[in-house]
């Protein structure tokens, strides 16, 4: 499997200027704090909160558009809510994908995806991000965060991409990252809310 970039590298090359590393870390911390301060101005919502607005826009774009992918565009809190979520729709007739990012119930980004992304639509009855995160936390996420100073970096909903054995399954994948160790991936069945598997990468 191609190695995924989960946002933070697990290991840093030794001896590559610790001073520079410290400076970069300070900059990153400052950026994170600034981003956090900005994010706090907007209400954190579960993933389903923006679904109707995104779907309405997608139907205008293409009447056969279907949701194929969903990802948090800003940090997820402990309830599985985020100030901004990104929804990706694919139109078989146009052979194009279009993304909508919603914040406070309004579309703040609408853009065509430059890459080809002919993904199958996710199943309609997917559990919301809060329930998915709770299942992941219960199984392995909480322990990972505690032991490795980890955090939830990404929650994404997709169908078939990560589930090799059952490509029809719609799943949530919750990715925990840590500055000290490899990332933790927890896959949750989006229909039943059960954890299907976990892995490190």
């Amino acid at each position, binding site marked *: *499997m*191609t*190695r*995924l*970039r*989960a*946002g933070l590298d697990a290991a840093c090359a030794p001896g590559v200027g610790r001073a520079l590393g410290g400076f970069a870390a300070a900059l990153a911390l400052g950026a994170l704090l600034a981003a956090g301060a900005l994010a706090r101005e907007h209400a954190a919502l579960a993933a389903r909160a923006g679904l*109707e*607005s995104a779907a*309405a*826009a997608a*139907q*205008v*774009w293409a009447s056969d558009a279907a949701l194929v*992918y969903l*990802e948090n*565009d800003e940090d997820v809190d402990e309830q599985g809510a985020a100030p*901004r979520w*990104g929804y*990706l729709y694919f139109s078989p007739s146009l052979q194009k994908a279009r*993304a*909508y*990012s919603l914040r406070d119930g*309004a*579309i*703040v*980004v*609408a*853009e065509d*995806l430059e*890459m*080809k*992304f*002919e*993904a*199958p639509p996710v199943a309609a009855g997917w559990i919301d991000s809060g329930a998915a995160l709770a299942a992941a936390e219960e199984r392995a996420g909480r322990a990972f965060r505690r032991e490795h100073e980890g955090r939830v970096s*990404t929650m*994404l909903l997709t169908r*078939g*991409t*990560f589930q090799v054995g059952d*490509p029809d399954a719609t799943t949530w994948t919750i*990715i925990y990252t840590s500055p000290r160790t490899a990332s933790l991936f927890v896959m949750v069945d989006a229909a039943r809310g059960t954890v299907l598997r976990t892995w490190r990468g």
Partner: protein
Amino acid sequence: MPSRLERHRGSALRYCALAAAALALLPAASLAGRAGAAAPAGATEVKVERVRPRRESLPTLRFLKDNRAFFRARLDQLRETPLERRGGAAAIDPRFLAYPGLRDGIAAAGDSVAGLDEARRAHELFARINDLGRLEAQLDLLEHLLAEQDARLGVLQHDFTGLQRTALAIVVSGYPRAAEVSSVSITLEDGAAIAVPISAEQRDALRRGGVLQIFHGLVEPRSQVLEVGLGGGPWAADSGFVTLEPPRDRLTLLRLDLSPVQPAAGATGILASTWLQDAELRGSGSSRTGP
């Protein structure tokens, strides 16, 4: 207490109002008329700017974009050729099956009304008090038919007015005194451009208070910038930018009043205003179109 005739008159007015509201759902015909020459009360003025407004740039779907090679590889593995396809017919929406019944009811009601009308003509003079009783019975029947028609309109309203999708209609009114405008162009945010030539008849109509609809279509429910351009002698390549935020599942109207436009200011002199079309049938039979 209102007399029976007054009540019938009220019902008839209600029915007319219902029909008018139903007609208002027809898009193009009613919009131009409703926009009217006078500025609609409650319309919000929007600024036509010379420079395209800048927008906050936010990243989206970062994980997907960072790992595009992985996703592409996985999707390639998922692609399959279907071996078997079902040939069964899909279920028909039961509402559609019920519509012929509605149509038959309307036809039957029409026959009844025609019969009543013939009977009424045959009794133009009431020689005896018993004829008044018959008239009352006929009025009762008319009231009953009106109630049934009201119910049918309610069914259609429920099925179709709830399907309003996010749409935008752009109308032009007024005409500049200073120079001729040969066309008005609109460029939507997705790059689609519409150029509407203004004929001599339309120019004359605009001068006399008429309204010209230049666009009516679906738009995404989000903040977006439209480019408005004027064509003709002094307006060559002149354009302005209007920011709109059409709400979801509503019809937004944008009116471009050209009357105050001067060659010096160009398209930024357009007086633009926006409002929402609100046409729906109420339970009481009243109709409302606002503002």
